[in-house]
């Protein structure tokens, strides 16, 4: 009697103690992430159909292959792959024992129906070169190609090629990724409040992490809450005051302050995009290539990097991030700051300096419109650009639009100059922004050129090998540069800041972006 009472007591206290531990853990085991401004506003966790995906997507879905920061490809759900010498067939072997969150198996059939589901979607271009998919056996698939596609692995590693459960995808239809989602990733979608937050809960069955993570088993952290904070500076304050534990995409100008905080650590990764100023070639005075060239010389990239971004990041000299081989163009074509030469060119074009510091031609002042979108960090940069344009005698009037209206303005061809940016680490971005098929938006430069289109087609569809593709895109890139269609300004870094009292984050970060592979290694600090 006595003995059993004692045991009960002991057990009771153990339960109490465990309860305390558990609840303390439960609080600690949630890590809150602030999304970066560029990834706000995703409407669905649907890699196949959505045009906007955020970092949380990479935790819900795995990809066949992963790309590291050095552009090398690593196996993930595909353990290996082989391309035929003519480039017309790719064979992938798949990882065994992988299941989706809805407990259906991941296998060759799943891959087959997944690729097919891209037909008719915004992201169809990713699989456009694939003619058909054969199921060789349960864990082997073969992609039969229409043409060689050296960019296939890049596409497969992109966020838009996360693999959803075919069963759930068919069942949920347009609700997939909205009400619920199923992938094979280390975390499952628990709750998605659009525009507000996404809660992910750990997939305890997960044992198939890629070799980009230390941890290939279930994640260390129980739940991740991804918050969408529209105002970057609010997000910054949230990190400082402990409202979030990790902030993806810290605005560069906040870095010095965060660096001074003892409990905040910063990870800087190479950027995957540039900020630039497209020039509308159809809008006078920019139909004159001399004026365009002068404009490209008006922007002082180095001082912008130094003063606006505190020396973080790099000046942009052409349209591609410098880690891409296609960014190595003829040095003469790279854009550099040269206000004197800009002045000469403008004089040559007939725009002479007026008394009030604004150039004139036939009594008309050199006054132009400079657009930007309000939901981004560009308003600040735009004002500096405005001041620098003023220095060469160009009077630019800023209008700040919401992102939807500014797109309408582009489509209406109502713009002259704009400050914007993109985030893409592949040279096919040139096609996106300069193809004559997409005038207005995204071809904000409104550039339609026979030679350009020819070079574009060659680069996009006629490259048989990676080397050929590089050469073709470099040629296209150089031609684009020679036409002075835009002014490259800045290559930002990806800045990730976290609260080191709350969590530990892998160092160095692998992969081209801070996503699944890095989240796998995040731990709650003791």
């Amino acid at each position: 009697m006595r003995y059993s009472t004692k045991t009960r007591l002991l057990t009771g206290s153990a339960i109490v103690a465990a309860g305390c531990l558990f609840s303390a853990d439960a609080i600690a085991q949630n890590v809150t992430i602030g999304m970066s401004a560029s990834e706000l506003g995703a409407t669905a966790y649907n890699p196949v159909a959505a045009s906007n995906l955020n970092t949380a997507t990479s935790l819900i879905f795995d990809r066949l292959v992963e790309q590291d920061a050095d552009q090398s490809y690593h196996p993930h759900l595909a353990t290996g792959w082989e391309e035929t010498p003519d480039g017309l067939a790719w064979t992938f072997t798949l990882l065994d024992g992988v299941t989706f969150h809805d407990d259906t198996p991941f296998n060759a059939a799943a891959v087959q129906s997944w690729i097919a589901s891209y037909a008719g979607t915004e992201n169809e271009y990713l699989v456009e070169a694939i003619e058909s998919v054969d199921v060789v056996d349960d864990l082997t698939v073969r992609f039969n190609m229409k043409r060689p596609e050296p960019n296939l692995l890049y596409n497969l590693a992109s966020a838009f090629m996360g693999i959803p459960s075919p069963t759930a995808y068919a069942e949920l239809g347009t609700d997939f990724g909205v009400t619920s989602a199923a992938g094979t990733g280390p975390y499952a979608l628990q709750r998605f409040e659009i525009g507000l937050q996404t809660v992910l809960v750990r997939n305890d069955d997960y044992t198939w992490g890629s070799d980009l993570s230390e941890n290939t088993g279930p994640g260390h952290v129980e739940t991740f809450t991804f918050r969408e904070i529209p105002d970057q500076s609010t997000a910054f304050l949230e990190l400082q005051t402990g409202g979030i534990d990790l902030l993806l995409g810290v605005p560069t100008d906040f870095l010095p302050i965060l660096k001074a905080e003892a409990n905040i650590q910063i990870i800087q990764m190479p950027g995957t995009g540039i900020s630039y100023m497209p020039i509308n070639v159809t809008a006078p005075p920019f139909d004159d290539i001399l004026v365009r060239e002068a404009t490209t010389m008006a922007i002082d990239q180095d001082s912008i990097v130094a003063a606006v971004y505190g020396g973080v990041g790099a000046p942009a000299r052409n349209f591609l991030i410098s880690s891409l081989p296609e960014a190595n163009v003829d040095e003469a074509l790279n854009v550099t700051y040269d206000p004197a030469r800009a002045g000469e060119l403008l004089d040559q074009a007939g725009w002479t300096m007026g008394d009030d510091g604004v150039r004139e031609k036939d009594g008309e002042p050199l006054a132009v419109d400079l657009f930007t979108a309000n939901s981004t960090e560009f308003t600040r940069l735009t004002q500096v650009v405005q001041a620098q344009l003023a220095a060469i005698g160009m009077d630019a009037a800023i209008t700040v639009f919401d992102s939807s209206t500014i797109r309408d303005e582009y489509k209406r061809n109502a713009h002259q100059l704009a400050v914007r940016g993109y985030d893409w680490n592949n040279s096919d971005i040139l096609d996106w922004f300069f193809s004559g098929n997409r005038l207005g938006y995204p071809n904000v430069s409104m550039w339609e050129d026979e030679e350009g289109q020819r070079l574009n087609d060659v680069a996009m569809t006629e490259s048989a090998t990676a080397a050929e593709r590089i050469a073709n895109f470099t040629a296209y890139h150089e031609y684009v540069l020679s036409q002075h269609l835009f002014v490259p300004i800045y290559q930002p870094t990806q800045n990730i800041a976290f609260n080191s009292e709350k969590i530990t984050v892998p160092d160095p970060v692998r992969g081209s972006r801070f996503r699944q592979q890095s989240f796998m290694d995040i731990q709650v600090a003791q």
Partner: protein
Amino acid sequence: MILRYTFFRMLMLIPVSFSISVVIFMIVYLLPGDPIDNLLRVGSSPEDRAKLVAQYGLDRNLVVQYFVWIGNMFQGEFGQAIVLRRPVADLVAQNLPYSLTLGGLAFLFSSTVGMTLGTISAIVRHPVLDRMMRAFILLGSTVPGFWLALLLILLFSVKLGWFPVSGAGGWQSLVLPVLTIGFGGVALVARVTRVALMDARREDFVTLLHAKGLSSGTILFRHLMPHALLPVVTILALRIGWILGGAVTVEFVFGRPGLGSLLIRALGQRDYPVVQACLLMLALAVMLGTLIGDIAQAAMDPRVREKKS
């Protein structure tokens, strides 16, 4: 009596709701830009466009569109958000609780605190207190809401670290938004209560109440308060819609979800069905507010009951 009044008052809502719905429907057509453009894949053909336009019924005659729309609204069918690609009802359902919580708390806060302060300042005639009260009322009705919000963040979040900077998690995140909206509300309600009480006090019948030998307390609570409440209730009722819609600034600064921020977002994206639904909800709140205010007035004031029914 009061039922009769309510019935007639509600009858009057029919033409008003009709004009509101027409105005809201028209606003959307005045908006520049086109949600279909947002939906279209880059490089789509005009045929793709026409298909989408037809899918959303935007190719029909405006009057037909209006009646289809209003018919759907009556069935609680808000339609599908074009850009956000989900049922508008879901979006409203997701955002409305946030609006109601914030609005409700701000409403409670401003009415209770405002009426208390107003009453105190009307009965305690202390020159210093009076001056402080007037200064507070002046500040409350003039300081821009967003600026107050920023200052509160600076003090309570950044310097003191008491409340979160933004978001909508837990009661802590409600404190500063409620204070921000409440501050103006408290000032307004306090001012109206104060003026109403002081006006009521000057009424002739109050002399007679004193002459009957009633105590000041009885007079205040049984006779003056009901009089003071008449204008206060009107103001409070009007504020229901005002708080819900006017919260947009506060929602913006604190990064909170809600009807206001949903509306702003949808305006930006030209998401017609969402804009219409949000405006309709807000208009509904405004109408409900005035309705409640009028009925409350009628319940409290026999003169109103008779004049209008």
